[in-house]
């Protein structure tokens, strides 16, 4: 029992590589919309979850639910994105984030 616990701790090295079922969050942007995509590292789409959008000062700008296809679309004009955007997704059991810098957004807008 002790050996098993120790082995578990030994093997579950804290900074590990790709975990079997991590939530993977990706956000892309064009000049009109932020597209958020969330799926598990197994490839399964995250069908439920909350999307939180924060600004560069970590102030919550808006929240919205994930659609059944694991995506969320946020009109860019509804956000103050001058300091970039932090996109967080929480499915209850898993959470993760994606960072869009002001440069990311400017680059996608062609400016």
């Amino acid at each position, binding site marked *: 029992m002790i050996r098993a616990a120790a082995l578990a701790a030994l093997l579950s090295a804290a900074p590990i590589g790709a*975990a079997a079922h991590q939530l993977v969050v990706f956000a892309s942007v064009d000049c009109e919309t932020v597209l958020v995509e969330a799926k598990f590292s197994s490839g399964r789409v995250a069908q439920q979850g909350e999307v939180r959008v924060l600004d560069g000062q970590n102030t919550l700008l808006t929240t919205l639910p994930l659609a059944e296809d694991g995506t969320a679309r946020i009109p860019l004009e509804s956000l103050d994105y001058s300091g970039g955007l932090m996109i967080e997704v929480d499915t209850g059991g898993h959470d993760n984030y994606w960072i869009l810098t002001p440069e*990311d957004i400017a680059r996608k807008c062609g400016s």
Partner: protein
Amino acid sequence: MRKLIPTTTPRLLLAAFLLLAAGAAMAQERARIVAVNYPLAYFAERLAGDAAEVIYPVPESVDPSFWRPAIADISTVQSADLILLNGAGFATWVDRVSLPRSKLVNSSDGLSDRFISTQSITHSHGDGGEHSHEGTAAYTWLDPDLAIAQAEAVARAMTARGLAPADAVQDRLDALRSELETLDAAAGDALADAGTVPMIATHPRYQYLARAYGLDIAALDWDAGATPDADQLQALSDLAAERGARILIWEADPGAEAMTATDELGLTSVVFPPLATPPEDGSYLEAFRAAVTALGTAATP
């Protein structure tokens, strides 16, 4: 009336202006290198000399394995001339941002056959059902031989991008490699008899160190620097009894209370900073050497 000015004054002013202008140009042209952990930052600084500004973006006291950068931090990283990754799953934040591929260098590329795999026991949480986590031990630099390979990768990346003069980088790499080889030999000597002494680490950080020097290190999962509670001490006591361990390795000094509690279990405490962050004293080489010396001393009957 024409005012006469000594001819040396404008020359001096001109010289000063040129010096300032040159300095400003050099400052602007100085390459910027971001490293995701301290060992890579140390290698980059050693190899670049004055040719580059090396940035370790993680705040002090934050574990770079779990750092969650702010947006402004990523803007800084994106604008660097070179971004040094450790690989082996270290610093997962790099997978949560857009980084320019042309500037990214994984310093452990080509070393994957020497990675140590990790796997937790089966468990369940959230909506994923029963599963286990698989991964890779990430603290590669605790094996000096792997550290040499990573330093060589850093040197190649700098040279390929013209961030520092190739000859100078090669000279500095030769010196660094020699020092790492000396460290390796010193660690081998210090730990020559330590393989027969079962050890326990308070956190699973030392897989590559253990493999490099034939050490027997089991690991708990305590927070660095935190005082263990009664349940943790009991688990440690049970594990130490089962394994016959008499050495306890801490990532950071946990304070007198914690050390006294583990001393009472018959364990000799050794603080071995895993060096992902800058050590309190000295450099990577100095702190590594001090730690293996302390570990070897503790393991000596």
